[in-house]
């Protein structure tokens, strides 16, 4: 049989070829037709399937699909929502709170904030006249009052009730004035209504959690409205015809948010011209994108900071301030910033970021100095007695596990560099990589030794939740488990101070005390990188969670 088989096989091979040829011919026709239609559909862009950004259409490569467009319910960055629903205020590119639907930001100086003798305070919001919801109904103080009542109602589940639960009531003496009565002094009152308001005439008496129609197509006062939400694919926004700033705004007719979770795919979309803009580009993609024709990399300091939290509850050695200071001295943060971070993120020394009005640079600093680090560890009683390169004290090695997020390449690299540098001064570090969702519950339960991560700081410089002794989880986010009475006093006093100058003085003192205590290892500012079309004008960026679309009404694409 083995002799016969090849002969027979040969005879049917020709038939197989014919069949195969038929198949491949048919396949080739289909492929050619598709490719030809693709070639015909080229419209410029970066020379591929894309089209150039224009005032007709701007395509945004967005990293996820929003859960809801209700600004009070979403947990996701509010870029899409910002284009539709406006707040009474917003934050600008310098992190200043600026009025939007309000005529001014209330303050003690302009009489908008009055401290009551009973310990409470009244904030008067003057609303901009002539503003209408997209359905033509006027936007009034009744909407502001309805929003407060809805958020404080037990039947609605917004993401956060922070601040709203301190409001006793809202008076509406006229349609353009809302007087908010706080039960106590609340320093971040300025951004209380940054997420805007809920339309009373639409939602009054409705279950807001279940109001799918509103939550997927919210009524706003902003420059855009939702035209189409194609689940899993995109949200298309279209300019409203009678925006309150005037008929000439917004300049761009349509904005398309394409949901592209994979960061490399997002980058490929930018390169091919299928997308024009991407916010928060990962730093390791900067080099890939900076020379792409038609793109500009917009870079600005962020309001977040990367650091290593030292869990004093879990690692007794961290309770000694000399050890904590030694660890900071032992890490060459400038080297990390220059190499792994490609010089994109500056080294910082504390939790309040340079963009904040409360920031101070006059704090104790811990430059890279391994001699000083070794001396501090010696002084704290940690010495390498057995010659294995790791310091010990009372028989226990100076060892801890550094937890960080898996799949975050830059963090993994930083963790490895820190591990290597600390080894040089006799500290043994093990790295633990955990997925993004799991890591949150681990740190919230205090189940870690040290953690490399960032905090996104609110635009108001309140830091109590991160460092007050009574704000350890679950009461807050003091996961260093630091406890210091003088720091507590300063932070709580600042939370009860409304006037800017005295509050800043308290926060400066708090930052200085924090630097003395060194509860964590500050690494670098989380600089924002946004890829935008080179032809886009009036793009300003934004360091806060307000996002880059805060001034989308004035964006304009010009001819190259």
């Amino acid at each position, binding site marked *: 049989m083995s002799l*016969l088989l090849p002969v*027979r*096989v040969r*005879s*049917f*091979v020709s*038939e*197989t*070829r014919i069949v*195969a040829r038929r198949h*491949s011919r048919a396949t080739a026709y289909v*492929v050619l037709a*598709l*490719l030809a*239609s*693709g*070639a015909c559909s*080229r419209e410029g862009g970066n020379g591929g*399937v*894309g089209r150039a950004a224009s005032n007709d259409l701007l395509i945004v490569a967005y990293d*996820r699909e929003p*859960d*809801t467009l209700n600004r009070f*319910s979403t*947990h996701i960055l509010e870029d899409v929502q910002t284009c539709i629903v406006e707040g009474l205020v917003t934050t600008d590119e310098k992190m200043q709170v600026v009025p939007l639907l309000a005529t001014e930001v209330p303050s003690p100086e302009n009489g908008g904030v009055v401290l009551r003798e009973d310990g409470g305070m009244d904030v008067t919001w003057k609303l901009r006249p002539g503003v209408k919801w997209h359905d033509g109904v006027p936007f009034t103080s009744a909407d502001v009052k309805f929003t407060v009542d809805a958020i404080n109602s037990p039947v609605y*589940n917004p*993401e*956060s*009730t*922070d601040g709203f*639960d301190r409001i006793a009531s809202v008076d509406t003496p006229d349609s353009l004035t809302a007087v908010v009565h706080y039960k106590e002094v609340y320093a971040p009152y300025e951004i209380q209504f940054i997420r805007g308001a809920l339309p009373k005439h639409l939602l009054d008496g409705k279950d807001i959690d279940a109001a*799918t129609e509103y*939550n997927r197509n919210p009524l706003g006062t902003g420059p855009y409205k939702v035209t189409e939400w194609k*689940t*899993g*694919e995109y949200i298309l926004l279209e300019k409203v015809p009678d925006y309150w700033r005037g008929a000439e705004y917004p300049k761009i007719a349509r904005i398309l948010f394409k*949901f*592209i*979770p*994979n960061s*490399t*795919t997002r980058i*490929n*979309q930018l*390169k*091919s011209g*299928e997308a024009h803009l991407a916010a928060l580009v990962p730093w390791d993609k900067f080099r890939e994108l900076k020379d792409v024709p038609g793109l500009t990399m917009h870079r600005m300091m962020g309001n977040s900071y990367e650091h290593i939290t030292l869990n004093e509850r879990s690692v007794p050695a961290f309770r000694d301030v000399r050890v904590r200071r030694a660890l900071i001295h032992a890490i060459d943060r400038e080297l990390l910033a220059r190499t792994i971070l490609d010089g994109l993120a500056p080294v910082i020394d504390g939790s309040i970021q340079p963009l904040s009005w409360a920031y101070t640079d006059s704090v104790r600093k811990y430059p890279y100095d391994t001699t000083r680090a070794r001396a501090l560890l010696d002084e704290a009683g940690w010495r390498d007695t057995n010659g294995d390169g790791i310091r010990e004290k009372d028989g226990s090695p100076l060892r801890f596990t550094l937890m960080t997020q898996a799949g975050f390449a830059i963090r993994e690299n930083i963790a490895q560099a820190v591990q290597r540098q600390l080894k040089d001064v006799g500290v043994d570090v093990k790295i633990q990589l955990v997925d*993004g*969702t*799991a890591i*949150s*519950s681990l740190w*919230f339960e205090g189940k870690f030794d040290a953690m490399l991560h960032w*905090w*996104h700081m609110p635009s108001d410089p309140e830091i109590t*939740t*991160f460092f007050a002794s009574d704000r350890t989880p679950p*009461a*807050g*986010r003091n996961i260093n488990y630091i406890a210091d009475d003088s720091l507590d006093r300063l932070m709580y006093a600042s939370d009860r101070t409304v006037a800017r100058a005295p509050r800043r003085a308290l926060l400066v003192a708090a930052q200085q005390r924090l630097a003395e205590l060194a509860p964590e290892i500050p690494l670098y500012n989380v600089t924002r990188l946004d890829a935008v079309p080179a032809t886009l004008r009036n793009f300003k960026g934004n360091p806060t969670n307000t996002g880059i679309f805060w001034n989308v009404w004035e964006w304009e694409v010009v001819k190259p």
Partner: protein
Amino acid sequence: MLKLTARRLIQAVPLLLLISILVFALLHAAPGGPLAIYLENPNVRPEDIERLRRSLGLDRSLPVQYLAWLKGFVVGDWGFSFADGRPVLVRMAERIPATLELILASLVIAFLAAVPAGVAAAARRHSLFDRGVTIFTLAGISLPTFWFGLLLQLLFAVSLGWLPSSGRTSIMGGDLVDRARHLVLPAIVLATVHAAVWTRYLRSSMLGVLAQRFILAAHGRGVPSRRVVFRHALGNALLPFVTIVFLDAAIMVSGAVVTESVFAWPGLGGLFTEALARRDYTVLMAFLMVTSTSVIVLNLAADLSYRWLDPRVRT
């Protein structure tokens, strides 16, 4: 055959029940939960977390949560997504067409590639063509889907500009050609591994059949070679192959997760990835039950087709 179908479907019930218990337990045992995502936001305070926990029913004991889910699942009330509050059934139904489209296209591509290649490779055993097929199939099996997908994007979207890099439609498109163009790359990526495996499988199946005595006898009776190969050999070689195709079709549902993620394809895989990151238990349970059921049903379909194709099994 009806009896067999009924028996197998009845047997599937306790199996699905067991799967649901295991999946439920595993999901809840994994660190993190639907509320973990809120922890990063300093404005979300502990009292907010507790309020949200209650509103999602997560404050109840696990057995109570499971029984509530099971009761709803059986009567077609699959609950609401923890992420956006919409019914899980609606969220699943929105995504199923895209996944089916991708899987069907991939099956067709894989089948069209595997059958001629497998037959020809077996027919030309040890030839240059056979060796070429071996190299390609090994490469196809070894290629990481993620990497291969990105590579095709770079080539066909970024460099050549011929095909869209991701998504299912263009904003201005949406017609048949536009959809087909979007489908090409993800379908090829998803089909590649299966085409490679099937080719190998069919090749060795064909070689086994071609070596049997009834093939010789057929030739001896003067049956034309073409008829011998396609009727006698291929017909028999396809029997186990069909089973593999059905089983792979079931695997494709879960295998599409990576492909959908790379190509931002709005199917069940994308929903699963999103739900997993968010620990959206209700959506995850629904997805895993749908995929488990599809595995069971396609297994049954494979058995039934086998019986239909091979008269010997019927007796």
